[in-house]
């Protein structure tokens, strides 16, 4: 039988397709690769994480056997295995739920917006603990996601915050790892 995790990592990738429309004689519109750039774009990497994470909240997911033995005082709580979401509204929410780890360096973060309509896009700041209330310059559209590694020194848990950029509340899945 295997022992507890001795290491963790995340393999992450991005894929981008720039497109332009063309109108056919029959009045049908089709999309093709944008001629100016002429190709798709992509990249892939691996972020090495700490084996023992800062807490159960490092991911929004629930382990399938977390119900009674890992919920603390709320042992009667139940959740569907491998699901778990965080509601996002107009109030800033820190992805790291334990302030004891505010100053811990972020090695990797992934945020997926589970919204389904256009005005459920969210905005993300990486300066949330530094008085950057107007620095939410990353946007995650409904259905989209963002993945990034921290620089290893400056980006800390307290700096990563989200709030809605549209008019409708939404939910997210996330990973924020040291």
């Amino acid at each position, binding site marked *: 039988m295997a022992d507890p995790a*001795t*290491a963790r*990592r995340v*393999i992450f990738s991005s894929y*981008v397709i720039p497109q*332009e429309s063309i109108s056919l004689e029959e009045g049908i519109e089709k999309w093709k690769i944008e001629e100016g750039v002429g190709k798709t774009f992509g990249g892939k990497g691996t972020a090495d994480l700490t084996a023992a994470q800062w807490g159960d909240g490092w991911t929004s997911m629930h382990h399938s056997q977390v119900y009674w033995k890992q919920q603390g005082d709320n042992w009667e709580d139940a959740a569907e295995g491998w699901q778990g979401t965080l509601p996002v509204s107009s109030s800033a929410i820190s992805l790291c739920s334990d302030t004891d780890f505010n100053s811990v360096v972020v090695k990797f973060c992934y945020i997926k917006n589970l919204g389904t309509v256009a005005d459920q*896009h969210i905005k993300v700041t990486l300066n949330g603990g530094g008085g950057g209330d107007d620095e939410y310059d990353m946007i995650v559209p409904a259905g989209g996601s963002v993945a990034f590694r921290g620089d290893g020194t*400056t980006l800390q848990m307290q700096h990563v915050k989200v709030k809605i950029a549209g008019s409708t509340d939404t939910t997210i899945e996330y990973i924020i790892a040291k």
Partner: protein
Amino acid sequence: MAEKIIYKNHCTPQEQLSFSGGGTRYYLDSDCGRKLTGNCESRYAGKITGEISSGTGTLSNSGTATISSCKFIFLKNTDTSGSDYFTIAIGSMPSVIKLSPGEAFACDVGDNGADTAVAVVITGSGTPDYEYLKGA
């Protein structure tokens, strides 16, 4: 004719287990239980021919390059040295996103979440090559 950008960010969290008989192996992380993928169309508001553009360059050590007027940004470290990286600063945010060789970053951007373009500044460590795609 119109333009759009569709993109996907994907991740696979893994944990390494060691076995009493020796040896290790990576599995899908049991805290997450699955891979995560987001797939969407960029919100960049242009959608007019000519507002998508791309480019390449090489940064000097501690040197910077500015990609102006972005509503969507894709950046990739195309260096092959194995260690030269750069960090990314989006709009008013600090330069805290790191891209090592082969890695890429794709995201909609805007001033405080609005449909207002911002500049993206990258700062080199070593002399990394980079590639970008932007929607303006």
